[in-house]
C-alpha cells in the first residue's frame, strides 16, 4: 500500500513483489529483524551500485539486477542469510 501511494498502482507492481524475496532471503528466512535489515541493505546497495555504474562504467539500468547479484554473492558466503538460523541435519 505504501508503494501504491508512492508510485501509483499498476500491473508492474508485481515486480516490486518479486524484489521482496532478495530482502527476506538476505536477512534469513526465519528472522524478522533480518528481513527489515535485509530490505534496507538491498535498497541502499541497489541505489549506490546504480550510481556507481552510471558515473564510472557508463552503464544504465543496473538498478534492476543489482539486488539479485548481491543476493547471489551473499548467499554464496552465508547460505542461510545474514541472520537465519543454521539447520543442523542428520541422516
Amino acid at each position, binding site marked *: 500500500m505504501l508503494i501504491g501511494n508512492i508510485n501509483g498502482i499498476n500491473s508492474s507492481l508485481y515486480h516490486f513483489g*518479486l524484489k521482496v*524475496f*532478495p530482502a527476506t*532471503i538476505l536477512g534469513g*528466512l526465519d528472522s524478522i529483524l533480518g528481513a527489515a535489515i535485509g530490505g534496507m541493505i538491498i535498497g541502499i546497495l541497489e541505489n549506490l551500485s546504480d550510481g556507481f555504474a552510471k558515473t564510472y562504467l557508463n*552503464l544504465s*539500468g543496473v538498478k*534492476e*539486477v543489482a539486488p*539479485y*547479484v548481491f*543476493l*547471489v554473492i551473499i*548467499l*554464496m558466503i552465508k*547460505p*542461510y*542469510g545474514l541472520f537465519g538460523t543454521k539447520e543442523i*541435519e*542428520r*541422516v
Partner: protein
Amino acid sequence: MHYCGDFRTTYRKDMEIFQTPFIKVCMAVFLVFLLVLPVLKLKGEYLLKGEYLWILLQILIASIGAVGINILTGYTGQISLGQGAFLGVGAYTSAYVTAKMGLSFWVGLPAAGAVTALAGMVFGIPSLRLKGLYLAIATLASQFILEWIFVRWESVTGGSHGITIPRPSIAGHTFSTDRSYYYIVLAVAIVMILFAANLMRTRTGRAFMAVRDHYISAEIMGIHLFKYRLLSFGISSFYAGVAGALFGHSLKYVTSEQFNIEVSIVYLAMIIIGGLGSIMGSIYGAVFMILLPKLLSTVTEMVSADFPSIARLAISFEHGIFGLIIILFLIFEPDGLAHRWKMVKAYWKLYPFSY
C-alpha cells in the same frame, strides 16, 4: 508396472525402456502417427492447418524444455526458476550464430546447447551450498540477471528490438514452412527425449536420484555432490538451450520478452502437473500447459459468439479459469498425470478383480 505373466529373469530385461512387445508396437504406431499427422489430407485439405500445426510444434518444443527441467528438478531435486532465461540463452546463441555470423542452423543448435549448458553451470554454482527456498531464489536471481543481459548487451542480442533469424536449411533446401520445420523439431525431440530416458538408467542418473532423495546419504555413499549437481544443471540447461533455439527458429524472431519469468513458471508448472521425476510426465505436462490456454480461448470465443453481451466478461475470466484449473489439478492430482496414468493401467491390468 508389469502385466500378468510378464516375468523378468535378468537385470538387463528389467532395465529396458520399452519392456513389452505391446509397448514397442504402441510406440511404433505413435511415431508413425506423429510422422504422418502433418501431411494427412482430408478432402484435399490438410487435417492440421495453421494454428493447430503451430500448437503441435510448440508442444514438441516445450516437451524438450520440460524434460530438461525435469532432469534438474524432478530427478536431482534442485528447484529452478530460471528455465525461461536459459531458453532465452539458447535462442539468442542460435540467433547470433545463424543471423550475425552467417553459419548454418546445424552449427547454431549444438552451440546453443553448449553455451546454455555453460551458463547453467555458472548459475548452478550456488547449488553447492544452497537448497530449498534459498536455491529457488538464487535461480530466480539468475532469471533476472540473464533477462537484464538480454536487454542491455545490444551488440549481441539486438537490445529490445531483438534479432530476426532464418529457418534452417539442408543443402539449399530451406525448411521455411511450419510443416517442414515440424520434422526437424520432431527428430531433435525424439533424440533428446530418448537420451534423457537412457540417462536415467545409467550411473549418472542413479546418482541424480540419490542426491534428490537424501543428499547427505548420497555424499556418504561416495557421490560427489558438487559434480553431480553441476552436471544436472548443465544437462538441464543444454535441453533448455536446444528448446530455446528451436523456439527462436520457429518464430523467426527473438526478443527478451519471450523469455520472462512467466515462461519459467509455466515450465515449472508443466513438470509439477505432469509428474516430477518422470520423462513421460514432462511430455504430458507440456501437452497440458500448451493445450489448456488454447482450449480456453476457443471456448471463450464460442461463448462470446453466442452471447455477445458477456464477451468482455468471458475474456477477462479466461486467465482466472486457467489458474483455477491448475490449482484444482494440484489438489486432486498431486502426483501428476504420469502417476494417474499408472493407476489407470494398474486398474485395467487387474480388472475385474482389483484386489
